[in-house]
C-alpha cells in the first residue's frame, strides 16, 4: 500500500469522525439555550464534514464502503431530523424527534412485542407461507395443463393489477376479527404475484436444455427437479421478496377494518387518533425493521441458493 492509498482511505474516515463529533456537540448545545450561534457553527461544520466523507466513501469500492456510505447518510438524515425538531421546537403531534421515538420504543417494549406477535407471527408468517406455497403449487399445475394455462393465467394477470387490499373488509367479515382474517388477506395478496412469477420462471428453461434432458431420457419430475426448478428460482425469489412487503401491508391494512385490541395496524390507527405519535412512530419502526429484516433474510437466501445467476457474478 502506497502512502497515497493510505491517505486516500484515511481522509474520508477523518472527515466522518470530525463530522460526528461536531454533530454531537451541536446536539448537546441545544440543551442550554445560550449558544445558538455556536450550535449553528457546529452544525454547519458537521454537515459539511459528513458530506465530504460521503463523497470520499462513494469514490471507493469494497463491501465495507458499500455499507458505510448509506449508513452514514442515514445517520445524517436522522441527525438533521433530530436537530430540526428539537431546535425549532416542532410540536410533538406533528413530528416527534428520533430521541423521543427511541424513548417510546424502550418504555412500550411489551406492548410493541405483543403487537408484533399478533400481526407478524400469527398473521403474516402463516399467510405468507400458505399464499406463496399455494401460488407455487398452482403454477406447477398450470404448467402441466394447457387448459388451466389458458384459463387461470389471464385471470391471474388480471387480479395481480387489481387493488387487492380491498378484499380486507370481506375477509374480516368471513373469518372474524382475530388473526385468521388477516392471514387470509395475506394469503390472497401473496398468491397472485407468486403464481405469475413462478409460471414465467417455469417457462424460462430453453428448448435446447429441454431437448438435452429428453436425450438423457429424463422424465417429467427429473426435468423439473434438475433443470426447470433451478432455472425458475430467480423468478420465485423475486416473488418472495415482493411478497414479503405485500404481506406486511396486507395484515396491517386488514387490521384497520376490525381487530382485537392488539396488532400493529390497530396500534397505529388508535394511537394516531389519540395523538400519541411517539408510540405510532415506534410501531412504524418495528414494522420497518420487520420488513427490512425479512427482505434481507430472503435476499441472503437467494444469494446462497442462486449463486450462479449473472446478477450475482463478480
Amino acid at each position, binding site marked *: 500500500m502506497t502512502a497515497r492509498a493510505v491517505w486516500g482511505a484515511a481522509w474520508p474516515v477523518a472527515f466522518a469522525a470530525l463530522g460526528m463529533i461536531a454533530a454531537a456537540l451541536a446536539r448537546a448545545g441545544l440543551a442550554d439555550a445560550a449558544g445558538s450561534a455556536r450550535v449553528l457553527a457546529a452544525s454547519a461544520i458537521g454537515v459539511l464534514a459528513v*458530506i465530504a466523507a*460521503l*463523497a470520499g*466513501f*462513494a469514490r471507493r469500492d469494497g463491501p465495507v*464502503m*458499500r455499507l458505510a*456510505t*448509506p449508513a*452514514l*447518510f*442515514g445517520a445524517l*438524515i436522522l441527525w438533521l431530523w433530530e436537530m430540526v425538531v428539537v431546535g425549532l421546537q416542532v410540536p410533538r*403531534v*406533528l*413530528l416527534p424527534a428520533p430521541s423521543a421515538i427511541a424513548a417510546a420504543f424502550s418504555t412500550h417494549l411489551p406492548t410493541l412485542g405483543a403487537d408484533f406477535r399478533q400481526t407478524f407471527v400469527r398473521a403474516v408468517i402463516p399467510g405468507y407461507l400458505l399464499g406463496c406455497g399455494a401460488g407455487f403449487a398452482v403454477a406447477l399445475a398450470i404448467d402441466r395443463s394447457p387448459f388451466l394455462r*389458458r*384459463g*387461470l393465467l*389471464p*385471470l391471474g394477470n*388480471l387480479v395481480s*393489477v*387489481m*387493488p387487492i*387490499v*380491498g*378484499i*380486507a*373488509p*370481506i375477509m*374480516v*367479515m*368471513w373469518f372474524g376479527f382475530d388473526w385468521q382474517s388477516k392471514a387470509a388477506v395475506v394469503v390472497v395478496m401473496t398468491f397472485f404475484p407468486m403464481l405469475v412469477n413462478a409460471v414465467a420462471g417455469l417457462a424460462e428453461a430453453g428448448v435446447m436444455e429441454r431437448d438435452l434432458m429428453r436425450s438423457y431420457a429424463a422424465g417429467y419430475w427429473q426435468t423439473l427437479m434438475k433443470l426447470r426448478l433451478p432455472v425458475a428460482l430467480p423468478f420465485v425469489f423475486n416473488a418472495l421478496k415482493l411478497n*414479503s*412487503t405485500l404481506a*406486511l*401491508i396486507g395484515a*396491517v*391494512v386488514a387490521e*384497520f*377494518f*376490525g381487530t382485537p385490541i392488539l396488532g*400493529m*395496524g390497530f396500534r*397505529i*390507527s388508535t394511537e*394516531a*387518533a389519540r*395523538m400519541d*405519535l411517539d408510540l*405510532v412512530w415506534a*410501531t*412504524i419502526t418495528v*414494522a*420497518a425493521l420487520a*420488513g*427490512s429484516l*425479512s*427482505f434481507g433474510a430472503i435476499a441472503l437466501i437467494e444469494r446462497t441458493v442462486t449463486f450462479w445467476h449473472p446478477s450475482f457474478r463478480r
Partner: protein
Amino acid sequence: MLSVLSAVLLVWYIAAIALNAPQVRERLPLEAGLRDLVAGTWSMERPVLPAPHQIVAELRKSILGHPVASQRSLVYHAGVTLSAALAGLALALLLGMTLAIGIVHVRTLDRSLMPWVIASQTVPVLAIAPMVVVVLGNLGITGLFPKAAIAGYLSFFPITVGMVKGLRSPDPLQLDLMRTYSAAGWQVFAKLRWPASLPFLFPGLRVAVALALVGAIVAELPTGAQAGLGARLLGGSYYGQTVQIWATLIVASTLSLAALFVVGLVERGVTVLRGGRM
C-alpha cells in the same frame, strides 16, 4: 376466455349457495324445498357472498340510479379516489424523476441514497397512511393533498427504479459519440439519456398507476368515511353491506384497468411520435 369467464361465474354461483345456505336455512320454513333454498341464497340482503347478479344490480343502482354529483353515486366516489390517485401519480413522477436524475449524475447520491430508496419499499408504507392523514388534518390540511401524498409515496419507487435503469441504458459507444461532439452534460441528458430512458419509464409507470390507486383507497380509510372508494369500503364493512363492498371492489378494479389502458395508449403515442413502431 369466454369459457373461463363462464366457469368463474358458475363456481361463484355455487360458492354463493354453499356459503349463504346456513343463514338462509335458519329463516326458511321447514317445508321449503331445494328450489326455495337456492333462490334464497341468491337474493339475500346481506349475503356472506353475494351472487354476481346482485352485484350487477347494485352497480346499476349506484352508478345509474343517482345523479353523478350525489353522495350516493359510485361515480362520485370513484372520481374522488381517482383525482387523489392522479395527483399522487403526478407527485410520484416529479419525485421519481428528480431522484433518478440525481442518482444517475451524482455518484455520492447513487451510493448513499439508492439503498434507502430500496429500503423505503420494505417498510409497510400503507401503515403510515392513517397517521399522515390525521397529522395533516390537525394542521388544517385536508382533502386531496394527504391522500395524494400517500399515493405518491407508494408509487414513486417503480418510477425511480425504471428511470435509473433507463438513464443508464445508453451504451459507452453512444456516450463516446456524444463526447466527440463535445456535448455538454445537459446536452447528453436531453439528447441521449432522456430519450433512451422513456421505454424503461413505462413499465414502471404501469406498476405505479396500480399502486397509486391502492394508496388513494387506503388513505381514505381513516378519514372517517366521508368520500371515496375507501370510504365506501369502510362504510360497507361497518354496516355489513357486502353487496356494496363487492360493487366498490369491481369499480376499483375497473378504474385500475382503465388507468393501465390509458398508460398503454400514451406509451403507444410516445413510441410512434419518436419514430418507433408498435
